[in-house]
């Protein structure tokens, strides 16, 4: 089931979705499952923020931005998305890899 969904989505070499606009909640769930993240309301809170923020700025939000603009703090975000929260959240939200800048 999960694999079926993912088979129809285009990913780049690092596993990030190529077209953010193709993303659906189901795809988000499938990516999370593949990455072994069990999604709770708090995860969705971050993912929804990342999607809205991306629509405005064209960039996936940084850790700093997520923790400043939502009520999720650093400790919690690391519990929600353990290895590399900004990257993981962007990945599940169907956004490109955060550059963290250059």
């Amino acid at each position: 089931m999960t694999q079926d969904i993912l088979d129809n989505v285009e990913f780049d070499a690092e596993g990030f979705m190529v077209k953010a606009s193709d993303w659906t909640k189901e795809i988000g769930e499938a990516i999370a499952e593949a990455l072994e993240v069990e999604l709770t309301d708090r995860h969705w809170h971050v993912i929804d923020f990342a999607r809205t923020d991306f629509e405005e700025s064209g960039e996936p939000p940084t850790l700093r931005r997520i923790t400043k603009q939502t009520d999720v703090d650093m400790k919690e975000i690391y519990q929600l998305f353990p290895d590399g929260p900004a990257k993981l959240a962007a990945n599940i939200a169907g956004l490109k890899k955060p550059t963290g800048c250059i």
Partner: protein
Amino acid sequence: MKRVVILGAGTGGTMVANKLVHELDEREWEIVIVDRDETHYYQPGLLFIPFGIYSPRDIEKPKRDFIPRGINLILSDIEMIEPEKNRVVLSKDKQTLSYDYLVIATGTHIQPSETDGLMDGGGWRKNIFDFYTPDGAADLAGFLKYWKGGRMVVNVAEMPIKCPVAPLEFLFLADWYFHQKGIRDKVEIVYATPLDGAFTKPRAASILGSMLEKKGINLETNFNIGQVDNKKQAIKSWDDREIPYDLLVTVPTNMGAEVIARSGLGDDLNYVPIDKHTLQSNKYENIWVIGDAGNTPTSKAGSVAHFMLDVLLDNMLRHMEGLEPLAEFDGHANCFIESGFDQGILIDFNYDVEPLPGKYPLPGLGPFSLLKESPANHWGKMMFRWVYWNVLLKGGDMPFESQMTMAGKWQ
């Protein structure tokens, strides 16, 4: 009289002043530039101070020497920018300056107070140092001179930082320096970075990563510092990793000027949101941004400010004529990376093309090897100080084009 106000007389602001003075009719336009500091620091030189290669004196000159005649330099803190009223408020005598055009060039600087325990835990400037400020670099030189060895941890707190290759250069030079002193076998070097590799871009990350390995420098990736425990002498990440240190060399969080935040003009790190191709503010059409102060997704470096210069000036002058700005800035950056033992590396890239290996053609001087060590690249780096003071700041012609070229690059 109409007025252009330039905020900041560092690399970007000084270049704009020098070029703009030739473009505007002095009977119609007044140009004013404001900075709080009367000294101009050649920031790339900060890297060499900890190792005694340069002294602080070697990187300082009076700002006034680089501001052309006919331009009014005001030494004052900038207190507030009021874009709705087209004016700036200065601290000195609470003077207000109205403007027709505003160029923001207030740069970026370190903010160690963003990390718990970094500045306020007792170790600051005792066994915790930065090298992004003249004081920090000089104090670190004093420490290293008598250090007998131990565990040195170099940590980048948060991206983006200005000159993102500087921590790597610091590591390479440190390796060389400890060799010279005959104590390399007594020093363990660790590089803890929030990135997932040695650098942001894949090809360069892999080449620079293997150089770290060859020099026996340990790389700790995805390390997001949460706290410095001064008693235990360890840095701790948000995901509960701990790295002990005897000497901590930090590149703290970099942030744009506070005045940008106070004036409601900045993003989460006080950078001004601008169009990344035209360099015009997203919100105010008479505000333009050069150098580190803006949020363009490219390196924050002097070379980048230089590549922005012509685009910014053309566009601002076009705007004065009622023309649309041209989307000409491509994110072009190039950096000489000092790699120790009189060798250097050159990287050249833009928004779309990552640093690639090859040769960089430079009429009369080059070619310089790209992404590969060579003595010529080291020489380029050392010569850059002369070029900076004598050509770059004065807005003179450099043998580099604003837009990146693919000539000589291997794909």
